[in-house]
């Protein structure tokens, strides 16, 4: 499924938080959204997943505006892992994952065999079937993210929107989650903090700064020392790794960055 935005803008208190952002995610593509803190990544994603109505511009799935669809119809096409804290209430892992079936169920609907199968398949797919009866609140950070990905799978959406899915995870679990996401064969757009992760996993990157799109393209084109220095105000060296053929970024914080070139 193709995700597209055109001229997306969001203003708050006369400030443009997101300014004229046009981007697209092709079917099956893994697109990263990068940018410094407060650059408008989350606001942009919230407009994409239809909880923030844009001041201008539009978001479309396969050419159809998300605001033309109901929340339910939209939820069958798009699943979201937001940064919202998941509350104080104690749900089991299975219950948590089966919430992904919510948009598929009609009013008053019982859980059908189809729902149970989708939940069981999702649990297996992300490797948390053995945790099914555990309480979600007692899981580790990496396990929680995997369960939430299972929920997105149970939702059977073909677009996945992620807001910093590797936040607070250690290195091993960061790679585990990213590998899992890349293997899902759905269209993905993910806000990412860690540039090396973005470089390694994403097909294309969009870099935003102060709400504006400043660069986009394959990681090698976006993550150049010049762009990193201009946007992040840190000196960096970028080298293609001989084995992975992916750009790796080394930051050189002790050397003065100087004014942007």
């Amino acid at each position: 499924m193709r995700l597209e935005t055109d001229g997306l803008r969001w203003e708050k208190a006369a400030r443009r938080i997101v300014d004229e952002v046009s981007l697209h995610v092709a079917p099956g593509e893994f697109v990263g959204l990068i940018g410094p803190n407060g650059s408008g990544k989350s606001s942009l994603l919230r407009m994409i997943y239809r909880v923030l109505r844009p001041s201008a511009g539009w978001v479309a799935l396969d050419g159809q505006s998300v605001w033309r669809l109901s929340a339910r119809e939209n939820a069958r096409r798009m699943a979201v892992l937001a940064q919202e804290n998941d509350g104080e209430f104690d749900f089991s892992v299975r219950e948590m994952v089966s919430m992904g079936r919510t948009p598929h169920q009609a009013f008053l609907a019982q859980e059908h065999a189809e729902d149970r199968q989708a939940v069981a398949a999702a649990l297996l797919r992300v490797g948390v079937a053995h945790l099914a009866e555990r309480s979600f609140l007692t899981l580790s950070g990496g396990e929680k993210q995997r369960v939430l990905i299972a929920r997105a799978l149970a939702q059977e959406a073909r677009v996945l929107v992620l807001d910093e899915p590797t936040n607070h995870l250690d290195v091993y679990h960061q790679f585990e989650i990213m590998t899992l996401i890349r293997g899902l064969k759905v269209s993905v757009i993910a806000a990412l903090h860690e540039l090396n992760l973005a470089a390694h996993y994403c097909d294309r990157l969009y870099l935003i700064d102060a709400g504006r799109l400043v660069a986009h393209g394959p990681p090698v084109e976006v993550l150049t020392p010049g762009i990193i220095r201009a946007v992040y105000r840190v000196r960096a060296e970028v080298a293609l790794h001989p084995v992975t053929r992916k750009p790796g970024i080394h930051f050189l914080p002790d050397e003065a960055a100087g004014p942007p070139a």
Partner: protein
Amino acid sequence: MPSRRLVLLLMFLCLLLLASINLAITLGPVEISSATTWRIAYSEALRLFGLDSPVGEWTVAQYNIVWRIRFPRVLLAALVGSALAVVGVTMQAMVRNPLADPYLLGVSSGASVGAVSVLAWGAFAFAGGHALSLGAFLGAALACALVYRVAGIHGHLSAARLILGGVAVGYFLSGLTSLMTLTSDQRELARSALSWMLGSVAGAQWSHLGLPSLALLVCALGLFSQSRALDALLLGDETAATLGVDAVRIRRALFLIASFLTGIMVAVSGAIGFIGLMVPHAARMLIGSGHRRVLPVSALVGAIFLIWVDVVARIAFQPVEVPVGVITALLGGPFFVWLLCRHGRTPGMRA
């Protein structure tokens, strides 16, 4: 299979409820056997359908105690307990906080203001026999809206603001109830206002049961049909939205249901506290947070619980009978403190 466990638990609770109703009717200053109780109920049921009832082997006094006093009282306790537990679940989903309770958040006090204003000034006279319920409903809705505003439902709703807002609104409205009562020239009012503020099911009559049972049935079924949406709501508005649930609309419905049920129940029994806090908590400890389980289990546990609290209120301090709300307060206060102390990471208090 967890769902089979749920069915077993529900069956067990239904049996326990029937047994509790039975026992609670036989208990009291005048002991009356179960057999007599059910014979009287049987003959009344036959009469209801216009059939001849068997000649009673019971005295008029027994008949009056069982049929006119204890039966309606025990059933009212069951209804009110059940409804308040359901309101607790509803409000907890609405504000996404397991500490919400209609009494603690001042909604019951609002209902009392509404009810007393009907008695003192004859407000809502157009509603006839339902003026009291209507007044209590509107009072509850007003209080609920106020607390909602004070706690700032927009942005992150903090537990501290919620509880403090509820306490402030509750005190203010209790003050209003007292003022209306004390300045009214109706003598009866002082007595009935006291029972509203303390909460009591004494003096229940069969005619009191109709509207509350209908209200409870309709609201509980409505909530149950939306149990998935309620689950999603507990995860937060944005997550709910991305699961296809319109959080704003659902919350509006929950608001109406909570105010309506609280109003109806306060109109018949006054402000009985802490049921909505304790019962859903116990239910969640038993079967987790999913509303398909929490709602029916809470409804049954609430009914059983209030029946027994009322039995204690009736017979523990003989010859004095205390309002049932006094006992729920004595249980609920320490329960709340226990919740606050537990692990230091009590649900809902990470404000």
